[in-house]
């Protein structure tokens, strides 16, 4: 659960603004001392996230780098949701750490537009050999208007279809490859009293995953690209309208587990539905594999199957296209001194993805955004899954970044809110398109 929380971007914020505010006070002072003792020594501050196993991997990696004598990184860790607000406040106040951790996309673009993060384009292109070690598609969400503001970090998180094989055997069905298969399976499982799909609809971004794939399979990547480019009425595109209708048809056919609108992903209740055999299928981030493995290793070993999102007959999208989180990102604060920036860049070049770090990510059941992972995966205990994810990510013609990360925060909030109403049938396809077109 903890390692998935690094991905659950729009989860709940139990800690609340109080803790966030308290930690702003606590940390701005540590940033200040970092700056004061900076200068020649090259001491950079870094903010990262708590949550195993990534937290341990990061702190170990920084400790190893600090021994190299190429600068010192001073890392401070925060809980996922509290971090999002805290880092925004800090960046807005010019108090950001040297190395800013983030999700790329619309939020990073906001920082870039406000001149708060460094344009890394020239530096990255001067380090061609190093750049080539990353997955080619991983740079996209850290790039805005052709300029690079974020260096890919951690692991790749495409959305994967998970299946409970035991339930498929029980009803004598095979895994779906097309949307027609999906609708047939919905009837089959419902008639046996098994929920077809698990969905944590209360978390909203979980329902969004469905639309991301439906848009692509029906109309190809351009449907969302038009939205991203702000083209008028692009949420009302014919392919988009078809996708909204298909979602509501699936809801009407009881495709999702009973009460899915109050199931949330923060507690991993959606995954529990799959591994306890209450639901047969689930669309989720690749991180769900490790999360389920940590609680139900036997299930993952014997009964878990996975695959890509089914194709839609007559659709334009390539069945190899994927959606999800291509990578996390490190950005460098424009407010940092030269010495701090140098230390940060040294770490990105020589500390971020050492062999040890790549191994550690693979052992935790994740695929780091490094091409060197391929060979290492072959010897891993989770070989089947990891090599599937690796080939999925490296062979995809298009990797659509999660919409709520790609769009601005204002649009993302409206999107999640309207998606929640679409899935609970409080609004219909046309109303959804009208509401969302108003945000363009």
């Amino acid at each position: 659960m903890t390692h998935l929380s690094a991905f659950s971007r729009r989860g709940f914020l139990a800690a609340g603004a109080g803790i966030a505010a308290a930690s702003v006070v606590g940390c701005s002072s540590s940033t200040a001392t970092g700056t004061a003792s900076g200068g020649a020594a090259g001491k950079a501050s870094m903010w990262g996230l708590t949550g195993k196993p990534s937290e341990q991997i990061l702190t170990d990696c920084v400790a190893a780098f600090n021994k190299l004598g190429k600068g010192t990184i001073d890392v401070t860790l925060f809980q996922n949701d509290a971090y999002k607000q805290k880092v925004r406040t800090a960046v807005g106040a010019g108090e950001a750490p040297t190395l800013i951790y983030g999700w790329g996309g619309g939020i990073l673009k906001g920082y870039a537009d406000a001149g708060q993060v460094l344009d890394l384009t020239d530096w990255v292109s001067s380090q061609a050999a190093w750049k080539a070690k990353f997955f080619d598609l991983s740079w996209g969400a850290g790039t805005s208007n052709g300029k690079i503001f974020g260096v890919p970090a951690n692991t790749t998180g495409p959305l994967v279809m998970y299946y409970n094989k035991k339930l498929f055997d029980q009803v004598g069905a095979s895994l779906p490859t097309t949307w027609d298969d999906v609708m047939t399976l919905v009837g089959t499982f419902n008639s046996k009293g098994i929920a077809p799909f698990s969905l944590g609809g209360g978390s909203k971004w979980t329902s969004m995953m469905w639309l991301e794939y439906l848009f692509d399979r029906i109309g190809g990547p351009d449907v969302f690209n038009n939205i991203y480019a702000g083209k008028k009425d692009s949420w009302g595109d014919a392919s988009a309208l078809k996708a909204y209708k298909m979602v509501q048809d699936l809801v009407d056919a009881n495709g999702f587990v009973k009460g899915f609108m109050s199931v949330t992903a923060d507690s991993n209740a959606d995954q529990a539905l799959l591994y306890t055999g209450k639901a047969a299928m689930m669309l989720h981030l690749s991180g769900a594999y490790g999360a389920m493995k940590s609680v139900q290793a036997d299930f993952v070993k014997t009964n878990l199957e996975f695959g890509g999102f089914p194709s839609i007959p007559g659709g334009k999208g390539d069945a190899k296209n994927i959606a999800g989180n291509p990578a996390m990102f490190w950005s460098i604060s424009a407010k940092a001194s030269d010495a701090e920036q140098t230390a940060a860049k040294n770490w990105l070049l020589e500390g971020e993805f050492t062999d040890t770090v790549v191994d550690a990510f693979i052992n935790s059941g994740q695929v780091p955004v490094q091409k060197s992972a391929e060979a290492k995966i072959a010897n891993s205990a989770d070989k089947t899954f990891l090599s599937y994810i690796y080939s999925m990510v490296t062979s995809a013609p298009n990797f659509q970044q999660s919409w709520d990360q790609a769009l601005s925060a204002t649009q993302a909030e409206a999107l999640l809110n309207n998606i929640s109403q679409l899935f609970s049938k409080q609004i219909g396809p046309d109303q959804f398109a009208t509401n969302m077109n108003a945000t363009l």
Partner: protein
Amino acid sequence: MASATRSRDTPLAVLVLPSLLMFVTFAVVPLFGVVVLSFTKWDGIGAILPNGLGSWRQVLADPQTWRSLWLTIMTMAVTWAVQTPLSILLGTFLAGHQRYRALLGVLYFLPLLLSSAAIAIAFKSLFDPNFGLGAGLHIPLLSQDWLGVQLAFPVVLSVISWQFIPFHTLLYQGGVRQIPVQLYEAAQIDGANRFQQFFRITLPQLKYTIITSSTLMLVGSLTYFDLIFVMTGGGPGNATRILALDMYIRGFKANQMGAASVIAVFLVVLGLGMALGVQRLGGRDKTASQLEGM
């Protein structure tokens, strides 16, 4: 007499200074800031741009604002109507000095010890449609979609009431214990039964406690936030998006500080109006005594 008052006046003014300073720094100044922000456009990191009445127009034209306002008013009305009679009855019951009442009192006050976040997480788990209490015990009646579109709002209101009844019970228990026992003795001599004693003595004597408790309930539920935020986050859809939550979502999720500030101004005006209104109900003369002639 007059000189005594004057000699007390000076130190009082000095004593009031620290809290006045705190109040001005942390309440009046931010309040002023919010009013200013409501006429601007700000995403939290960029520049603060003047926006005239733009944010006001946006918020007033948004149907969600009015839905949220309605939900907030319902929250105030329903939680008040549920909590007040129950708290008065429980408070009166617990005011008795019998041992078993003290024991029950300890149990009743338990919710008061729990944080809102803990209560919200606990109830969220209990109401879970697949792994909650109903599903776990296989009781069909309990296996509703408690936090679904239809039931989420009433369920949330029930949990809020459950959380705060102990606090108001405590207020009423104190209030009842303050009522002079002579009143009851005199009533007994006159042949009044228990019900008559409750309606003729206890309730009228609790007038000021009711006003205090109601003010706390109404103003408190106006800005109520944490429990709903953790339990439903305003959802499903917008089924539980009360004004305070609407303000938070606009400000910190959608990064529209201008619009969020407009809602904040709304809340301040509503809250102040309500607090003054409830105080008015108690009569203008604050020194009026209910114990005259005792």
